Every structure is written in C-alpha cells, then in structure tokens.
C-alpha cells in the first residue's frame, strides 16, 4: 500500500524530469541552430572567397568586361559614399538627439520627433530608394538645374543624392544611440556644472558630450556599417554597373577630392549586379565570392568595433555612476 502510494509521485516526478530535459534540449536546439547556420554561411563565403583575395584584387580596376581584375573602384565607392553619408547624417542626428534630451521639454514635439524616428526605422529600404530618386533627383535636382542653369548636373543619379538617401535611412540609428548615450550621463553632473555657473551649452559641450562620446561613436559606426551594406536605396540614386574612372575631381585643378556629382561603383551593388545581371555569372563566381568576402569583412569589423566600444563605454559609465 505504502509502496504504491510512493511510486505514483515518483513516476510523475520522473516524467516531469524527462519532459524538462526534452524541453531544454529543444531550447538549446532552437538557440544554436541559427548560430550554426550563420557559421556555415560565413564559412562557405570565406572558404570560396579567400582564394581570390590578393593585393591586386583589392587595388586594381576590373578588366575584360569585369571577368578579371580587381574591385578597387567598388571599395573606393563604398568608402566614399559612407563617408559622405555620415557627414550628412551625424550632425543632424546628434543635433536632434541633443535637442530632444537636453533642451526640449517632454511634450508634443518630442513625442512627434520620437514617433517620426521610430517610423523612419520601420520603412522598407526600397521606399527610401524610391523617395531618393523621385524627390532628390527628379524634384530637387531638376529644379536646381533649372534655377542655377547648370545643364544636367544635379538632376541625375550621383553620389550626393545616394549619400543623402542613405543618410535619412541611418538617421534613426544615430538618433537612438545618441539619445541613449546622453540619457546615461547622470543628471547630477549637469546640475553640478550649472551650479558652478556654466551655461547650458557649456555644460553640454564640456560635461555631457565628453561622457557620451563613446555611445555616439558606437551609433556612428553602426550607421556606417548599415549604410555600407544597403543596396536598395542606392539602386537608382547613383550606382553604376561599370565606370572606367574613379569618382574623383581635382579641386582648383590640383587638390583631388571625391566628386559628389559623379556616379560610383559600390560593393553591395557590384555583388547584386554580378550575380543576377551579368552574362558571365558562372565564370565570375570566384570574383563574386571575393567581393562578398570583402563586404562582409568590412561590415563585420565595423560591427565588432561598435560592440566592443559599447561594452567598454558601458563599463566605464557604470564606474562613473558608482562614484
């Protein structure tokens, strides 16, 4: 009698234990299968791409209908467009975030900006491309050309408009991370600075921003990495299938600088075009894997840098608040 009574809970307990183990196994499977998939994808790209990466591949222009040669114009294009993009997006994004956190009173305007930023982040990237082409090139560009009588200078796809389109796309990334960084600075530091007679802007410039610069930098790097990887917004706003020259102009005839009015070749667009539109998709396979590897390494190291930077600054900020 007693043994039977004891046996029932035991059986139940064992069933629960087995169930527990099964569910935990499922959970581990669900968590680690995607990671394995990621490793598999990266592994395949590295394995197939590493063979073509040579110094010549990275520093020379494509030749013979892009079936041979390097991808230097694409690397140059990606670097210059992300530079231009961050030059546009960073002042606007950081400025907007500082205004929201430090100046604006919590009210309708801040809510409107925040809602706008949230929704900006959710819009599909191809819609940005559509907007960039319709608004920047066909509307702003054409009117600028008419007013300034510059012929066809602004009203065509070029790096400036592509960078502006990407800048709007990455604006939420910068605003959100800057806001986060500013909010992490303890309020007491601001009060202390103001109590000593510093003005609002002096406080922001000399007390708040130096502490928040790590977070802002992280946001900027994430934005650059995002911008470098996006293809859809620049499809019709400035990318070129092939350009025999680099988008460089000589300022005053001597100082070389990036020409924002020129079209450009770009890594992600190059991958897309070589894989889907080129006639020699099979023949150029190694080049495509090589280009993909370069793009992945670029975004990978940017993201890794951002993650490390963020954890570093989170730790140091934690120490500040503890004091």
């Amino acid at each position, binding site marked *: 009698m007693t043994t039977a009574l004891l046996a029932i809970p035991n059986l139940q307990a064992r069933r629960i234990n087995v169930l527990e183990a099964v569910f935990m196994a499922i959970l581990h499977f669900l968590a680690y299968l995607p990671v394995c998939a990621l490793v598999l994808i990266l592994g395949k790209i590295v394995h197939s791409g590493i063979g073509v990466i040579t110094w010549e591949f990275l520093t020379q222009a494509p030749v013979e209908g892009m079936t041979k040669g390097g991808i230097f114009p694409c690397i140059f294009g990606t670097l210059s467009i992300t530079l231009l993009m961050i030059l546009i997006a960073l002042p606007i994004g950081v400025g907007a975030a500082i205004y929201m956190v430090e100046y604006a009173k919590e009210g309708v305007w801040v809510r409107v900006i925040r809602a706008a930023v949230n929704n*900006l982040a959710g819009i599909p990237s191809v819609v940005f491309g559509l907007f960039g082409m319709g608004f920047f090139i066909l509307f702003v560009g054409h009117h600028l050309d008419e007013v300034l009588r510059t012929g066809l200078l602004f009203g065509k796809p070029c790096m400036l408009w592509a960078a502006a389109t990407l800048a709007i796309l990455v604006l939420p990334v910068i605003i959100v991370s800057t806001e986060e960084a500013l909010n992490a600075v303890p309020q007491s530091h601001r009060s202390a600075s103001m109590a000593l007679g510093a003005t609002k802007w002096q406080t922001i410039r000399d007390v708040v921003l130096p502490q928040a610069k790590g977070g802002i930098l992280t946001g900027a790097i994430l934005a650059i990495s995002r911008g470098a990887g996006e293809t859809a917004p620049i499809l019709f706003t400035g990318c070129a299938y092939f350009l025999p020259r680099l988008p460089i102009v000589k300022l005053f005839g001597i100082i070389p600088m990036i020409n924002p009015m020129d079209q450009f070749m770009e890594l992600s667009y190059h991958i897309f075009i070589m894989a889907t539109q080129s006639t020699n998709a099979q023949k150029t396979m190694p080049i495509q894997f090589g280009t993909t590897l370069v793009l992945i390494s670029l975004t990978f190291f940017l993201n890794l840098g951002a993650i490390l930077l963020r954890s570093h600054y989170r730790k140091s900020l934690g120490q500040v608040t503890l004091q």
Partner: protein
Amino acid sequence: MMAQDIGWLKPPLVDSSSTPSIYRMTRRGNLSQLLTLKTFRAGEWIVEKLLAAAGMISILFIALIFVFLFKEALQFFKTVSPMDLIGKWVYDEYDEKWVFKTMWQAISSVPKYSLLPLLCGSFLVAFPSTVISAVFGIGCGIYLSEVASDKTREVLKPTLELFAGIPSVVIGFFMLMVAATPLQDIFHTKFRMNAFVGALGVTIVAFPIIVTLVEDSLRAVPKALREASYALGATRWQTIWRTTLPAAISGVSAACILGFGRALGETMIVLMVTGNAALVTGNVFSTVRSLTANIAAEMGYVEHQSEHYYALFLVGAVLFVITFVLNIFAEIILNRMRRKLRM
C-alpha cells in the same frame, strides 16, 4: 575639511581660462565685458536654435517621404481607375471573349496594374519566414533570458548582433549561389528560384529582430513572478511556459509583428532569389514577385511622370502604409505591456 568635501564639485572639464564664464565677466562689469556677455548669450541662443533645427529636419524628412510618396501615388488615379488595382477586363483575341485578368504587366499595349500578384508574392515570402523566425527567435530569446549562463549570453548575444549586421545582399547572394540548388533537390520543386528560398533568406534577417525583442520583454518580467512559481514547486520549464511567457506575451507578439514588417520590407533577398514572375498563387514553391522587388526591378527603366512611374509610387505607398500600420500596432502593444509591468 569643508573644502575637501565639496572638492569633487569642481568641474573637471571646464577650463575657465579659455571659456568666458559669466562669473568672471559680471564681476568686472565694464562695457566690453558686458558686450562679450551679450554675444555669449547670443551664442547660446544660436546653438539651441541650431539643435532645434536638426530635430526639425528629422521630422521634415519623414513628413516629406510621406507627402511625396502619396502625392505621386495619387496621380496614378488621374488616368487609371482604382478597380484596375484588382484586375482588368481584357479582350482575349485567341479565345474571342473578355477575360478578367489579375496581373501586373506595366510594359504592355494594355498595361495592367493589379496589385494582387504582388501582395501574394510579398505574403508568400513574409509569412513563412515570420513563422520560421518566430519559432527559432522565441526559442532563442527564452534560452538567452531564462536558461543561458551569463558567460554564454555574453558570447551568444554579440554573435547574434553580428548576424543582424550581415548585409541582405550577401544573404541573397548566398541563397542564390549556394543554397538554391540543394533546396530544389530536397523539395523537388519546379522552379529553382521560388518564394520558399526567399522566405528562408528573409528568415535570417528577421530572426535577430525577433530574438532581441523577445529577450527584452522576457527580461522585463519581474523576478518575483518567477520566484513565486518556483516556490510553488514548478520546474524551470513549467515556470517559463506557464508564468514567464504568458506575462511577456504582448512583447513576444509585438516582436513577431515587427519581424513580419521587416520581412515584408526586405528587398534584395527577394529580388535575387524568388524568380520575380508576378503570379497569383498560394503555392510557396512557386516563383513570385513581391511589392519591394517589383519597385526595385522596374524603377530602373521607368519614364519620369508616366503612368508606370506613378504606379510604382503607388506600390511604394501601399508598402509604406502596411509597414506603418504594423509598426503602430506593435508600438501600441509594447506600450500597453510597459504600463502593465510598471504596475
């Protein structure tokens, strides 16, 4: 003693020799100093206005996108009736009768602008990918928040963030060049490029979004709830399944909605691997064309301010509205959850 106590209040970063302080200027009180004070105040004012302008520009751009997209999209209805967005009666010369055609065929003697095949395509890619990434995303989120040790989490989370950082064109390239052929062999599909291959690719970009949000909402569940459950003798799994997950269910559903929005908006993967034939179909292994891929594929050769140009803006506006509504919906759910958990 006193001085030592308040010593930390000294501003470490304000260098009084280089920056004019009000204190220094008002103490002397001569005219030139007062003038500096005035320019100084003007400087403050200018800085504030500049920062406000930056905020305004951010709003301006979203307003511009909204206004511009809809202004161009509405022009479409000047020449085409709204009924055409569903289908069009076309006279078939072979069968010698009128047929109702639901197709997208912008370049044709009789242009047809039915959105049905595009909506079909978007849905056939986004829905399976959301289901798959929700299963893995929720599992992974639970693992990260409830099961994994701190050390594991410190490794796994950044790895997943790097996951999210992979450009979508790379995923598209991988699916097209490496995964498509084996997948065709496994599923014996008619087309090498089909909605399912696209859905698998999109899963890779939707997954990190779902994981992050699921983990966040599980972590927001108060510890007391879990401890109460354990105290009643529940096992770890029972606690997760009966207590933690139900408490965070609104966050989890918001995560799935946002993942779905992300999947609908994905362009490059879908453009590269789904074949892009605009068909009205319910078959996941059929070739499809999504709203996003349609814009990307046709925008290149469209004529400015033509019917076709406005049609593409209409597609963009539809996409905008769908993702906008999904975002608002998710935001409302999340806000409700935050309010509930704060109580």
